[in-house]
């Protein structure tokens, strides 16, 4: 066993991890924001909008993420005229993919807020925007937290696919070290363990936030 290889290359691997985390953060935030728009379109009364949004979500649901990354990798040069940076292609593909899942999370979170809440709020003479902002959204966000956590973990895992088009994130960094040092088991184990720890931390954090939010509203936390 040559575990010292991992230590010798610790900075390189750490740089890979840092890129993985940055990519994940950008993808999670952007796709959540865009997911809200897609969800709003999907529940909209304008039929055209809701059909487009539903079609988009279903298309992404049936397509492997790797193919979506290839779409962007192959299509961006046609639009911009020059080869895209792999990082840009990977991140935009992953946002497009994750955004559809986020839209479903948002839609589910809104739907889980009972009809009675809307009606009660409207009956208290609140306007539609006030109902949404003060009554429905605070509850919906708490409902969404478990799904947002699992989507975040899924995003972190999926950034490993950027490897395929040459982005040097954690997986690629691990492979570079593997090829340079002829050390496979040790490097792969450390990379796997790193993903595991990051994802467990994210899940634990998500769960803690959810518990705190539920407790504050006096709901059960089981």
């Amino acid at each position, binding site marked *: 066993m040559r575990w010292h290889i991992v230590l010798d290359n610790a900075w390189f691997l750490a740089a890979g991890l840092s890129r993985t985390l940055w990519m994940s953060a950008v993808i999670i935030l952007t796709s959540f924001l865009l997911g809200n728009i897609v969800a709003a379109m999907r529940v909209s009364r304008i039929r055209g909008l809701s059909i487009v949004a539903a079609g988009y979500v279903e298309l992404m649901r049936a397509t492997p993420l*790797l193919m979506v990354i290839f779409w962007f990798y192959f299509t961006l040069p046609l639009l911009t005229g020059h080869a895209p940076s792999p990082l840009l292609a990977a991140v935009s593909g992953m946002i497009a993919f994750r955004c559809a899942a986020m839209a479903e999370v948002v839609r589910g979170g809104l739907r889980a807020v009972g009809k009675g809440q809307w009606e009660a709020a409207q009956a208290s003479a609140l306007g539609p925007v006030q109902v949404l902002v003060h009554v429905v959204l605070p509850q919906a966000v708490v409902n969404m937290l478990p799904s947002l956590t699992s989507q975040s973990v899924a995003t972190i*895992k999926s950034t490993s696919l950027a490897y395929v088009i040459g982005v040097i994130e954690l997986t690629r960094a691990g492979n570079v070290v593997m090829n340079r040092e002829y050390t496979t088991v040790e490097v792969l184990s450390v990379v796997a363990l790193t993903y*595991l720890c990051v994802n467990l931390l994210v899940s634990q954090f998500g769960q803690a936030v959810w518990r705190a939010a539920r407790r504050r509203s006096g709901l059960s936390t089981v």
Partner: protein
Amino acid sequence: MEFKWSVVFEYRDILLLGIVRTAEIFAVSTVLSLLLGTLIGMLRTSQKLLLRQLGGLYVEVFRNIPVLIQMMFFYFAIGLHSFWAAVIGLSLYTGGYIAETVRSVITAVARGQKEAALASGLSTLQAHGSIVLPQAFMYAIPPLTTELLNILKNSSVAMVVGVQDLTFTAREIETATFRGVEAAATVTVLYIALSAVIIGSVGILERILGVRAKLGERGRRSEIEE
């Protein structure tokens, strides 16, 4: 921007091989991950604390490591053939998700049903085998369908360890012809068609078992999770 779709047609043989390879990964991984997932899911609902903890450990570990890393492990570190590295990596990964599905449906059914079965004089094994599991399976069909679709989608990762699946052929055609958009669009449509076949097959299975009417629309769609 000009598209040339005939290019894709010229490569139909490679595409067909890609479909076959993807179907093979899908079929073998489905069987393996269902077996593994059921086993782990039953461990998770066991009365022995140690077994429950073992099941829990499995789920936490294999669900939180990217499927690509798991495939790479079997390919580079263990040195398996690329097809088997991909299948085993994918099955271990999906097994963790299926285990959670199995656990939740067993817990949902077991309440009441198991006690009733035991009270009618069945042994624990009989209660599980002939009362709890068959019912649990019916409730598990909608979430398991989602998992089957995930197996299909995640099988695309196999190209990274060198399996010549459908996604691999998309890149192959792009490399040979620079017609990336046409290749990617075609392969995407093929994936959607394969998804449709899976959904259709589950629908037929449900009709044979007569569960659709029983379950209704509630809970048919589960969350996108991969």
